[in-house]
């Protein structure tokens, strides 16, 4: 039999065991772990007011023989004529207790600006240059201006206010066209623009030099690229503006020396929450796996960590697997392939609600990109099954033919045979070996196989025979379980989201 109890903290004193007293007890799980718990506690008015007035942060649990089933914090207490109604939220909610402002990887060029003399007093800053920061960084000496070692054209990078992480890596492609008397540099600087370290130097060679750099350095608040006439005797530049230039493309500032993936971000979030509210989330990272996907632009301004982590998990990994993120029973943040910690259950459907709509079927697709279109591709199996060819055009935000074709093919995969909407009431839950299991063991991320559907393949029914569970809702009073099958986001949306990450 299960226990519903309330504690003063997750590891603290038990304040009440409400197992027998509570009514209408229902708890849910989703991809982020324990989601909600609601119950009504019949109490006399004095006790009801006492609980209502208790503003301490209280911890709710459902336990099965001393093993956690659901854990979270008491969020809402509502007075009723017959007692109190309570609502608790799972430990995932702790990640919403503080916003995050930080930079992990910044590929924006518009975050760079020309430095002026007032920015760096005592340093040889010059405005005798032409600058550009739209889509690339560009520094070129202007014709007729005085140039020398005391006149450096700088483009400086400065993150927004509130950022706590320092830059430790800088990636970029460069092109320097300059005679040997000109020198390009990259420097790390402190938050007053004072020079820390010169991290890159390239002298002109009379021609054009290009390449790629990946630099790591000690923590720096700010960065700069510079170009200057490297001669002790200043001279007027008589060439045309643009004949000598430094161009920086694919600039990428990182605040970790390795590639930026979801794992260190998740670990840092856990650490931040634990620092603020140690009882709400562990700072352990043992359950944070690494999807390996290089995240190109991760900049957060007063952002909700939950939204960030949910987006990062949805991007998946380098193998195209979907991932999930949440908090487990012992208060550890997890990041892992979707369903990797799930179990497989069998059930016999006594009733099933399935809806399929022809309106969601598109089995012939072409892509328009710019003024061009790709060839049309079709799914012959879908055409044969539905007895109909339904064709649509998608618009690709690319000028690359291959990318447009990939998006076309992905769209066809999504829509040639769409997953029907379904809900499955669960009367009995069985293990793969046939053992009957308590329904309260079923959780989001588990896989459910409906045993008694007609044994047809390549059919609509076959698409819901086995599904991953998106959400569970269990009511203790009636021992009833409802599961919501997962509807994975269309592959095309994931593809486009990842393309935007890399752009």
């Amino acid at each position, binding site marked *: 039999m299960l226990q519903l109890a309330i504690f003063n903290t997750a590891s603290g004193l038990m304040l009440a065991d409400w197992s027998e007293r509570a009514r209408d007890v229902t708890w849910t799980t989703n991809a982020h772990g324990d989601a909600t718990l609601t119950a009504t506690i019949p109490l006399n008015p004095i006790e009801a007011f006492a609980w209502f007035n208790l503003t301490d942060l209280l911890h709710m649990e459902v336990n099965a*023989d001393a093993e956690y089933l659901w854990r979270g914090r008491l969020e809402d207490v509502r007075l009723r004529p017959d007692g109190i109604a309570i609502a608790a939220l799972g430990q995932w909610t702790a990640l919403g207790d503080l916003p995050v402002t930080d930079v992990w990887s910044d590929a924006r060029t518009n975050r760079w600006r020309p430095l002026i003399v007032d920015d760096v007093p005592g340093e040889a800053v010059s405005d005798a240059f032409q600058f550009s920061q739209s889509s690339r960084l560009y520094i070129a000496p202007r014709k007729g201006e005085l140039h020398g070692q005391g006149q450096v054209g700088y483009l400086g990078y400065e993150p927004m206010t509130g950022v706590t992480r320092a830059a430790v890596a800088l990636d970029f492609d460069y092109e320097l066209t300059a005679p040997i008397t000109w020198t390009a540099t990259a420097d790390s600087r402190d938050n007053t623009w004072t020079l820390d370290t010169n991290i890159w130097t390239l002298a002109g060679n009379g021609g054009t030099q290009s390449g790629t750099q990946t630099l790591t350095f000690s923590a720096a608040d700010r960065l700069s690229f510079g170009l200057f006439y490297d001669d002790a005797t200043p001279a007027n530049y008589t060439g045309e503006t643009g004949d000598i230039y430094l161009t920086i493309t694919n600039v990428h500032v990182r605040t970790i020396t390795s590639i930026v993936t979801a794992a260190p971000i998740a670990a840092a979030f856990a650490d931040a929450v634990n620092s603020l509210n140690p009882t709400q989330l562990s700072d352990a990272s*043992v359950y944070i796996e690494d999807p390996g996907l290089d995240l190109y632009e991760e900049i957060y301004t007063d952002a909700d960590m939950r939204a960030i982590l949910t987006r990062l998990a949805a991007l998946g990994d380098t193998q195209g697997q979907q991932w999930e993120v949440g908090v487990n029973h012992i208060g550890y943040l997890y990041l892992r392939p979707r369903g990797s910690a799930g179990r497989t259950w069998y059930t016999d459907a006594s009733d099933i609600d399935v809806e399929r709509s022809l309106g969601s079927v598109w089995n012939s697709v072409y892509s328009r990109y710019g003024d061009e279109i790709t060839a049309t591709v079709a799914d012959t199996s879908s055409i044969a099954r539905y007895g109909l060819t339904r064709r649509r055009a998608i618009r690709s935000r690319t000028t690359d033919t291959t990318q447009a074709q990939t998006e076309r093919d992905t769209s066809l995969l999504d829509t040639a045979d769409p997953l029907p909407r379904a809900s499955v009431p669960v009367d009995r839950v069985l293990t793969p*070996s046939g053992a*009957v299991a308590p329904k309260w063991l079923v959780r989001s991320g588990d896989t459910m196989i409906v045993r008694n559907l007609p044994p047809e393949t390549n059919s609509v029914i076959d698409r819901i025979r086995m599904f991953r569970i998106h959400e569970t809702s269990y009511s203790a009073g009636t021992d009833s379980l409802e599961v919501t099958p997962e509807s994975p986001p269309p592959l095309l949306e994931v593809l486009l989201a990842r393309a935007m990450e890399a752009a």
Partner: protein
Amino acid sequence: MPPAAYSTITITDGTTTCTLTDGTNYALTMGGWAPQVPVRRASTLGGRPYGPVVESIRINIFGTTAAAALANLQTLMALIDQADRWYKDESVDPVLITYEPQGSELGAAVESLIFGFAGDSGPANLPMSFNDELMIYSISDVELTFVRDGVWYGEPDLTVAPMVPGPVDHPEVVSGTFAESAAHLSPVKLTIADLPDPNVFDTYDAGLLLIASSSNRLQIVDAWTMNAGAFTQDADAAREPQGSGVLVYTPVGTTQAASNTIGLSLEAGKRVGVVAALRNTTGLSTFEVQIRVSGPSGRSAALTQPYHVDASTTEPRIVVLGYALCEEDDYSSVQILATASAASGTLVFDYLGLIVMDDPTSRILAIGPISATQTISSGEESTLSIDPRELTARTPQIRLIGNLFPVTHYAVPEWWRGDAFLLSQGSTIAVSWCARTSSPGTLWRLYDSGAAPLANFGFSRRMAYLVPT
């Protein structure tokens, strides 16, 4: 016992009693009452296994005067009102209905708690002849209506002290037999008596209680005997292991390693709970532990979910590893599977506890630390009591009771997890106490070297009846 000559029904709070069959103040009307029969609660939350029932009893009330008759009515109404107030946690005594049917051979009435008013109804419907009959000092055909606990409880069966074997060298399984076999789920009070002086141990880090209906459904496995490959034996005598020694897993890599299998004698069931006493000795690695439970010839193998052993402490821990969900079969062997995060450190096991969980009498009850020395004095032996309080309270109680006569002191655990409303069915019961102390924190068990092994387990069960007997 000789059969009861006539039926006796009372409503009482222990001080004030209304005997509804005394024939002087109260009497049942002809065909005035048949006790309601409860059903099992549908809820999977713990507590009383049977649901409440609404009783409706028709009685006549008498008195030597009209005022006396009215006073008798008032007394009855006050008791039912008191029951309602008690159920709403006011500081009043609980109210019971007792019933000894004519012909009962139990020798005492069975009892049931009254929970109070039935819905929005008052405690009684008075007849339309109410005003007329007062002149003859009676109130006829009063319909009492109230909610009571669906179950009737008999006298406590104080049995099985000491149990076999005893005194107990925990976590050894002890079992006992009640005088009678319970046909229905009946509440059980567990006591663990003659515990050592709490000042020997500053704090009980009390651990887990495993309770089952028989010793065929509960087994403690000495991990020492599961040595194979990377799993080796060590005496570890200074830490007081429960058997000959402990089992040490020394990882050579990060792939899963398996211990030797060891035989089980558990009877068939569908869900096996597994607990373990284990220790991460260095904190250099973390471990994932699973337990494989298998039927004959290795069939019906089932695994618990991976349990993460972190590096938070190098002291022994007693933990719930989870459930193995099995096709119903006799279990014949158990095996430890361990995976290390690095090829360093060791993970040590003292014992495993396995309990067949798929009946409502099985329990894994985790009892938190008890800081006893603040209330229980040096020299006091103490008793740990897990009491369902089926006739006195709405929730069970766990507490440590100091036995220094004449003053009794109490200490309560910081928390417990699991259903403390212990139940029994049939005639047998078995228990294992997997406990340790946090001071000294190095020990596997509850006592220091040289101290006497504890303890005496006792069970007190009230037989539950769905119909009065």
